[in-house]
């Protein structure tokens, strides 16, 4: 970055739905960077902001939260970042509290908690335009005086009003360094906090801040004790005794914190806010329609269908252009390398193929995030979750799992990226784990080939359609129990209540939506893109090498009368047979024998681990009908129908029996054959543990179910 090092570090904190990110975008313009906090899947958004007096500030947009109680990774990151406990992170010089001006009392609860940290602060009362519309009047001078003299600014980031005031206020806060006065605890709570602080110091030797002591006293699921290394044997009685002390004074220890804070804030806001007409009537009116018992779900389905159709169908056009562009590039570059076949194949199939392999996902990602951005920023996403929650809650997911799972039917990649909209980490992980089970569009060519070649001709178009539909449900059938078991038995994360604010409806701001689309696409390219590229290269090498120059001659010698076209196809088949991939396929064929796969199918299965749709063209090569075979290729279908077992107990019977065809389709429905999915899963879950787990689980499940199907069907309907 060419900009000089920023003079100050400033953090933006606030409740969700306060327009905090819009303010962030307004303050930083396009000078933003998105990364991850170390070790967690919480995005770190930072940007440069001019204060207007020559000073530059590194502004960090912290995740939205209601309270400092650190139950989720998001909340943990905010607490740590503000306390300067993240390695490589500057302690913020100024904290900018973004509050919704129409709901000050609730928004200031977080501010009141943050006062414990003793950092200079600015209070931004955002969405001031809406407050004005509602007839709400806020005396900012009075409020500032009651909050220790910190700058209090009215702004409307959406309309761009007051943004310059915010800059000036940050500069003032940095100079004057005024603090929010912390809440004054009743004597017994103060004593309990002091006692806890002393106990930690005595047991662990470390000094906890007053903010940390409060987390120990008030939170039931704080991660702090573990991180302090405070021995459970000594910790539990100490915390219990402290809570008992709180209780004796008439406070429920788990309710004391908000009670005391809200009492204090109510006093601070007295005569500061002049109530207007109350909650905007428009949102309630829209909700009467969108959350109507009958019309609500219908409109919901309509919106979701529109989204799905766009991701599934609209994206096909730009995807086609990308494919055509890559192919055109291959056509241009290819012939110039005719003299060096190895380099030619490396460049066209390896390098260009690898770039195309991840670029082709971009249209779907961009379109899905256009919808996600519109749905979230308008406030509808919360309503969608509200409508769908009951269908998902019983298996441990929640209403917000719907959008990722639905997009999974088009493609798992955008589906996985959209799991970020799920706040609850447990539901987010479980959703990400089951999204790859959804029958994505890459499985379609496999079903289409098998159904067109075998089910249709043998059993008629009725069965063909039935099997097609059935195959699309197989994944869902296994995904639901998987989520159930995962959330109940495997994930040892405490369940979080699904409390969801249904915010005011708002027009999405195009700049914010475009930014979200771009940021998701950019992160996908830089992280998952590189992995996808590498996988494509590796598979290319495995199916290219070793390349014995004698192969072509031997094929020509064996069939001296064959046409050039047939010769080329036969040579291709011979090359792949003696490549590492081919040899490996033959070696591991016994593993897939219970599923009824011969070595050619096995090679196809192995070659399609990076991308499952590759099976069709690989079968095209191994069955000698040439490269570029499509699902509707009559030659390939005929070649497959003619294929017979050459040896063993099944010698002479067709390889593609009904049992084998069904087993193969089920295998593709369940198997984790998609490098990009595995790479994206790793990106979204913050490490390879879950990605590898998903790969092993899905592949093992696919093998078991395919073997069961083959064994069962071949006994019920033995091949003729």
């Amino acid at each position, binding site marked *: 970055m060419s900009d000089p090092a920023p003079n100050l570090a400033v953090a933006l904190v606030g409740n969700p739905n306060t327009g905090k990110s819009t303010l962030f975008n307004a303050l930083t313009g396009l000078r933003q960077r998105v990364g991850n906090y170390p070790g967690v899947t919480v995005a770190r958004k930072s940007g440069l902001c001019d204060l207007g007096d020559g000073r530059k500030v590194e502004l960090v947009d912290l995740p939205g939260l209601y309270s400092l*109680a650190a139950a989720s990774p998001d909340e943990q990151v905010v607490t740590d970042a503000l306390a300067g406990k993240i390695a490589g992170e500057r302690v913020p010089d100024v904290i900018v509290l973004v509050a919704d001006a129409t709901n000050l009392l609730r928004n200031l609860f977080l501010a009141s908690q943050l006062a414990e940290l003793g950092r200079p602060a600015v209070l931004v009362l955002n969405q001031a335009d809406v407050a004005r519309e509602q007839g709400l009047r806020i005396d900012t001078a009075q409020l500032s005086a009651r909050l220790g003299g910190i700058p209090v600014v009215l702004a409307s980031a959406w309309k761009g009003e007051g943004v310059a005031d915010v800059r000036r206020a940050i500069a003032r806060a940095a100079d004057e360094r005024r603090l929010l006065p912390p809440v004054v605890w009743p004597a017994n709570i103060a004593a309990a906090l002091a006692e806890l602080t002393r106990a930690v110091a005595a047991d662990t030797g470390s000094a906890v801040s007053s903010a940390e002591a409060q987390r120990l006293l008030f939170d039931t699921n704080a991660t702090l004790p573990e991180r302090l290394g405070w021995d459970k044997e000594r910790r539990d009685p100490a915390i219990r005794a402290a809570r008992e002390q709180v209780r004796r004074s008439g406070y429920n220890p788990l309710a004391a914190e*908000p009670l005391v804070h809200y009492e204090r804030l109510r006093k601070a806001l007295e005569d500061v806010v002049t109530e207007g007409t109350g909650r905007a009537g428009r949102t309630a009116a829209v909700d009467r329609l969108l959350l109507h018992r009958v019309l609500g779900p219908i409109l919901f389905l309509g919106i979701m269908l529109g989204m799905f159709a766009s991701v599934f169908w609209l994206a096909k056009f730009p995807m086609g252009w990308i494919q055509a562009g890559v192919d055109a590039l291959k056509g241009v570059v290819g012939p110039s390398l005719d003299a060096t076949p190895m380099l030619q194949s490396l460049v066209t199939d390896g390098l260009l193929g690898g770039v195309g392999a991840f670029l082709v996902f971009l249209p779907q990602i961009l379109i899905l995030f256009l919808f996600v951005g519109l749905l979230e920023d308008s406030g509808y996403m919360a309503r969608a979750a509200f*409508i769908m929650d009951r269908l998902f809650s019983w298996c441990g997911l929640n209403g917000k799992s719907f959008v990722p799972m639905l997009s999974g039917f088009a493609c798992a990649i955008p589906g996985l990226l959209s799991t970020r909209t799920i706040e609850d980490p447990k539901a987010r992980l479980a959703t990400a784990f089951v999204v790859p089970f959804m029958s994505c569009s890459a499985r379609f060519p496999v079903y289409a080939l098998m159904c067109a070649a075998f089910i249709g001709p043998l059993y008629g178009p009725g069965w063909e359609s039935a099997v097609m539909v059935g195959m699309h449900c197989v994944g869902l059938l296994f995904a639901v129990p998987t989520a159930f078991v995962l959330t109940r038995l495997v994930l040892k994360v405490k369940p979080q209540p699904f409390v969801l604010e249904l915010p005011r409806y708002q027009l999405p701001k195009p700049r914010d939506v475009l930014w979200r689309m771009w940021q998701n696409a950019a992160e996908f390219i830089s992280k998952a893109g590189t992995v996808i590229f590498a996988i494509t290269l590796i598979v290319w090498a495995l199916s290219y090498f070793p390349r014995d120059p004698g192969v072509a001659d031997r094929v020509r010698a064996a069939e001296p009368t064959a046409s050039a076209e047939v010769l080329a196809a036969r040579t291709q088949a011979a090359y792949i047979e003696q490549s590492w991939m081919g040899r490996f396929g033959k070696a591991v064929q016994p593993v897939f024998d219970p599923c009824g796969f011969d070595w050619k199918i096995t090679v196809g299965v192995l070659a399609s681990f990076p991308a499952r749709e590759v099976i069709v063209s690989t079968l095209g090569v191994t069955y000698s009908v040439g490269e570029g075979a499509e699902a509707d290729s009559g030659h390939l279908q005929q070649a497959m129908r003619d294929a017979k077992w050459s040896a063993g107990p099944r010698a002479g019977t067709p390889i593609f029996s009904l049992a084998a065809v069904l087993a193969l389709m089920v295998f593709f429905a369940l198997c984790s054959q998609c490098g990009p999915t595995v790479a994206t899963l790793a990106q979204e879950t913050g490490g390879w543990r879950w990605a590898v787990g998903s790969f092993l689980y899905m592949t093992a499940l696919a093998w078991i179910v395919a073997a069961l199907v083959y064994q069962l069907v071949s006994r019920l309907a033995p091949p003729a």
Partner: protein
Amino acid sequence: MALGLLPGMSLKLVRKAPLGDPLAIEFAGQVVSLRLTEAESLIVDVAADCPIQRPRPS
């Protein structure tokens, strides 16, 4: 509780989701979705825990 649902506060059941769960409740000028299980736990909490306190969410 962090959302400001405090003892003695009046709240209004705005509507139920189409499948009967969760509930949308309105208090202090905002609407919040709450699952039945969570709404239930409020009451259990009150009865068993501390009779002086009134309903509190999570």
